């Protein structure tokens, strides 16, 4: 298992119980999606897997390691695309990528090659020296994606990857995710967007109020609920509608 969680709980210092006893196993090479409404706890879950903060209780192992003991080692192999763009506005696109690679100690020469390669991949070679405040939201999101894979991660973690994306950027992001996955990269993503889950995920966990309420392949979900699309499954499992 690439990620394995047993009875995971997260209670914020504010008292909010965001995750209440979640267990799951993510296999190598799969695209695993957490689908659920705003406030379900998806980002909280992602942050624990990303070693951003520890779980309050329960067991979590990422790449066979304990995030409480080997966070740096784990993070070296993770690519994390956060829900909101947090590029460094003081810097250009190139500088953002360059410094990020530096945190991963990618050797200098390799770093330059990798940046060229990634800018091409996300179609932003012409924005290389633009300040990040001078490019569009969709372009920023693509830079965030490029940044997240600069260390050639074993696990790519995407928190609402297509939130706020124009259709073109969304296609770019999806195709990159598929390509990376085809090369063996495990992908974990969260979304509240049915189409995205349907298009990308091998397995989907429905999350609501800090719990996994259903887990299956997209086809499995459809069959189990006698449904024609995920929206339908969603309504049947959660009994409430998703806002887009």
């Amino acid at each position: 298992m690439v990620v394995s969680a047993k009875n995971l709980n997260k209670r914020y210092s504010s008292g909010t119980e965001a995750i209440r006893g979640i267990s799951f196993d993510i296999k190598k090479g799969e695209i695993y999606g957490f689908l659920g409404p705003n406030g379900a706890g998806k980002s909280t879950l992602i942050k624990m897997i990303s070693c951003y903060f520890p779980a309050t209780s329960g067991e979590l192992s990422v790449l066979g390691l304990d995030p409480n003991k080997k966070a740096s080692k784990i993070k070296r192999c993770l690519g994390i695309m956060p829900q909101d763009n947090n590029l460094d506005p003081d810097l250009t696109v190139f500088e953002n990528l360059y410094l990020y690679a530096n945190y991963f100690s990618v050797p200098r020469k390799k770093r330059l090659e990798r940046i060229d390669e990634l800018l091409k991949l996300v179609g932003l070679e012409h924005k290389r020296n633009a300040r990040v405040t001078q490019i569009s939201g969709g372009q920023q999101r693509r830079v965030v994606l490029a940044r997240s894979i600069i260390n050639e991660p074993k696990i790519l973690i995407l928190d609402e990857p297509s939130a706020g994306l124009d259709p073109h950027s969304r296609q770019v992001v999806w195709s990159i995710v598929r390509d990376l996955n085809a090369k063996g990269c495990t992908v974990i993503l969260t979304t509240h967007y049915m189409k995205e889950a349907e298009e990308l995920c091998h397995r989907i966990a429905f999350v609501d109020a800090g719990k996994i309420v259903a887990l299956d392949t997209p086809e499995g979900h459809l069959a189990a609920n006698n449904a024609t699309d995920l929206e339908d499954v969603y309504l049947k499992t959660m009994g409430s509608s998703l806002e887009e």
Partner: protein
Amino acid sequence: MISLRTYKKNRGAGGVEGRISTADLCGGNSIWKDLYDSRLLWMRQLTVFRKTYKVGLVIRFFEPLLYLFAIGLGISTYVGKINGLTYIEFIAPGILITTAMWAATYETSFAIYTKIHYQRTYEAILATPMNVRSIIIGEMAWAGTKAILNMTIVMIPLALMGLFHSPYIIVAIFVGFLVGLIYSAFGIIATSFIRAMDHYGIYSTFFIMPLFMFSGVFYPIENLPNVLAFFVYLTPLYHGVEAARLLSVGDLGIMLHVVYLLVMVVLLVPLALRRISGRIVVA
């Protein structure tokens, strides 16, 4: 009764209740690893600095001259020599050391607040092998670097004007580095309490300015009432200023001042770390 060890073992990573400690957020890294990693944050600061440094350097060069001329020349006609020094010679070492204080204060107040709450710079960096400890140590090291840099620039005109009587004044840069680290810890601690940018006014008016005014920069603190002088003895800037003044006349008897500053660094740095980590990662 449970022993401390069992308690630590059982409490899990999230702590028993409430706030998560810095160690819990450091994911098992040793302090040495984090010290080593902190250079990466320092390099980030350097990258940003290199984009805008020229204007800053010019300002740093002229600012102390303004102090010297406005305060020094104006007042020096009313005061005679202090301990054998002209008034301008008397205040020059203090001006030099306070440069370190201003540099560190600037780097660790608005700058860090913005990175936490507006730019979410640290959130992005935490998705790499860095952690809160390596980030904050890097910030402090950077503040110390800026202290050294600004002092060096300030020292040039002051030295050219012949205000220092001994080349030992060079050592004051090390003293200023310690003052910079102390004030970076103060700045970070203040940032950990602040809920809005405007609140820095409280910090500067009720903390930075009094410590600056009552630090022996402008007059010997022996002139103060005993009680006040006692409090001044407790403040780090005073020890920095005294040390620099001794050095400026070739007196190397600064050991106690340096020891005091080192002790402050050792006490304040962990405190700053503890205070700020929970503000960077709201867990």
